[in-house]
């Protein structure tokens, strides 16, 4: 993924041109998303394989609903600003691009802190412990694997924002911004599947500590 628009002076006819390279980058990123989907579907499969009992069928831990709902809303809102940033750079609107990128990263950070401080209970005391059998294992694995991708996304957004500030992207050639947007929407989409699987689907089992 080239973060930079460029045009080599001496183009070897055997090597791809910039526009051919961008087409390949795009397919490469989609294949990467496909690959990652196998990871996330395997995690979802794990959740439905383990979170069952003979009496209730599919179950879930009885976790606090309100914070998770709010943080999910924050993450979805961040996708809106990511899209806004991409549209802005394609219209050469630098101001909107800059603040939309920063806002996306900021909302991503709010989501991340929400997961780590509230859902994992680093600030409030955990509802679920790491060692709480299959509940703890699957909950921390799914939120943790997703959070890892959110961290990657935020880093990518900040890098691209910084390079955008230097004027490296144009309205015609801003592959890095597009790549950033595809990845961020993808990470968002994963949470759209994870949130109901963790918080909504199945009979709630009360936790005792």
């Amino acid at each position, binding site marked *: 993924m080239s973060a*930079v628009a460029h045009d080599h002076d001496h183009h070897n006819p055997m*090597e791809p041109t910039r526009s051919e390279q961008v087409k390949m980058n795009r397919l490469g990123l989609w294949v990467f998303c496909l690959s990652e989907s196998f990871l996330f579907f395997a995690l979802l499969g794990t959740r439905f394989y383990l979170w069952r009992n003979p009496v209730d069928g599919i179950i879930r831990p009885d976790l606090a609903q309100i914070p998770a709902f709010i943080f999910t809303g924050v993450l979805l809102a961040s996708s809106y600003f990511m899209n806004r940033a991409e549209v802005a750079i394609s219209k050469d609107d630098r101001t909107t691009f800059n603040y939309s990128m920063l806002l996306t990263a900021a909302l991503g950070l709010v989501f991340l802190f929400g997961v780590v401080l509230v859902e994992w209970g680093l600030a409030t005391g955990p509802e679920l412990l790491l060692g709480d*059998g299959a509940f703890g294992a699957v909950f921390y694995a799914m939120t943790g694997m997703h959070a890892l991708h959110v961290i990657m996304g935020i880093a990518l957004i900040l890098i691209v924002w910084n390079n955008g500030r230097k004027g490296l992207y144009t309205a015609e050639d801003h592959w890095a911004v597009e790549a950033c947007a595809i990845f961020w929407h993808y990470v968002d989409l994963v949470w759209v599947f994870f949130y109901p699987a963790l918080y909504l689907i199945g009979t709630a089992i009360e936790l005792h500590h």
Partner: protein
Amino acid sequence: MRTLYYIVTSALVRGLIGQGITAFVVYQGMVSLRNALGYDTTQGVYDEPSGVMAALISVIGFLLAAGVFTDWLKWIGGEDPPLKHGAQGRPEWTRYINVDVNHKVIGIQYGIASMVILLLGGLLAIIFRLELAMPGLQFLDGDAYNTLFSAHGIIMIVSIFSGIAAMINYLGPVMIGASDMSFPRLNAFSYWVSIPAATVLLSALVVGGWDTGWVAYPTHSTTTTMLGVQMFLLGFYINGFSSIASGLNMVVTTVYMRAKGMSYFRMPIFVWAAVSASILQATITQTVGLALTMVVAQRALGLEFFTPVTDPALIELGFPGGDPTLYQHLFWFYSHPAVYVWILPGLGVISELLPVFTRKPLFGYKWIALSSVGIALVGSIVWAHHMFTSGMPVTWKIPFMISTLFVAIPTGVKFFSWVATIWEGKMRFDTPMLFVLGAISVFLLGGLSGPILGTIATDMHLHDSYFVVGHFHATIFGGFVFPFFAAIYYWWPKATGKMYSEALGKLHFWIMVPGFWVMSLTQMRTGVLGMRRRIADYGPDLGIADEQALITVATLAIGWSILIMLYNLIVSLRSQEEAVPNPWGSRSPEFMSPSPLPEFNFDGPIQVIGEPYDYGLDDSTYVVPASAAGD
């Protein structure tokens, strides 16, 4: 002196030093931190959570020190470094120990890595085969035997992955008329990340070994006290990055880098096999990664994925427990199709070489092409046939038995095509052709013993016996090892410009083929007679002592024959004589260019104007330089 300087400053040596330093610093730091937090860090050969962290970070240390990330770090800073081509002012041979983006260099790097690792894995096998040659324990104890067979399994798997990557990298781009892969830097990353993965994996041998086999089933893998198991899991896991990145790269390359006129059904048939394998690699590898991560996490962090709930109070509350069969599903969802990743390129080599040596068109090109895709698709829905004895509802077993038997259909398509291609051909029995025919015979043995294991009733009897060992080795030797050797002999003059000794090549073949047949059939026989796999010993009253000794002798024969090949190839490199540009009379694009291939493969773009396999037809042309095509 210059040579020593080039070696010491190479990416390989820098990377290894970087990895060692990082591992040491991170490990010491983690241990101090954990001591300060009040944890006990004196259990076992090393402190497990610290060791895991050190191993993971050490890979980044390797890649940074080797310079794999350099261009990407510059991009983060906003620069745009061009691709570096050539040896950067150093001798040509230093390209193979430095980070190089050329697909042919990377292909050869993979090839060398594959052969080195193959020798190591083979050596381990010979050690425990010597132990098994007689009943009773002679010179190994149980732990050593367990470590040896576990290491043999995973080391050979790493060697196979390097071997297919060697073929796909070297041949893929040039066969479709491209100058390189779509993502040359990512390609270099794929190769270089497999080196620190291999060091982590090999470190398992010195930090206590492990006794879980290469499958690492919980609950044994989550409770064993042989701490090499963590390094094995992490080395296996990190190798997955290499698989995913190179699979992705080859898919995109094939979609976008084909020469003008090269429609999908006019690509050399090997490319179809390579792409099918690459699609599998790019996707399913994720699930084994997850399975391995779960074991690592259960051991190091206490996440209990695989521990069933036993506390009656918790069961009363409705709490769910962990489940060891979950691991088996995730593991085999990858690891069964993984064997198709290994054999598809090999079967592609067979289809690629047969028309050349029979001087006839490949029979049923489209069927062969689509059978590769078919094997990849059907092969992805058969995984639970490894679990017939694992405690699965019978309603799950029957569909998996049926889908398993369905694999025979696309595989059968390939066999019939090979037979029809050979039919009434003008055969030439050069060394590569001999290995192709050997591959077909051995793969047939593996294929015919497959349905016996795919059928529930017979599998119940033969599960975990030496019959499985015989079947598995036949499929992998027939589907990978023999075709890989055929490919090495066939493209050796193309890659090096030198010709090996035909006599030594034939000697290699005539030792290895009977050696393998004896080994595999005898393994199957001892399995039927009651020999269990993964067991260090057997009773003399089983009546299989002679068979066991025979297997050991056959194994030694195979080992010696491979040494003959390496001797043959290395000696040929020193010969003054240049190989002819197209020794086999091939029509494939790579034989249009001089040997060894130039930096960008062709002088200029090429164009496809005919069918790829019209051997024996006088007025048919496959590829021409685009400048000569006239349009």
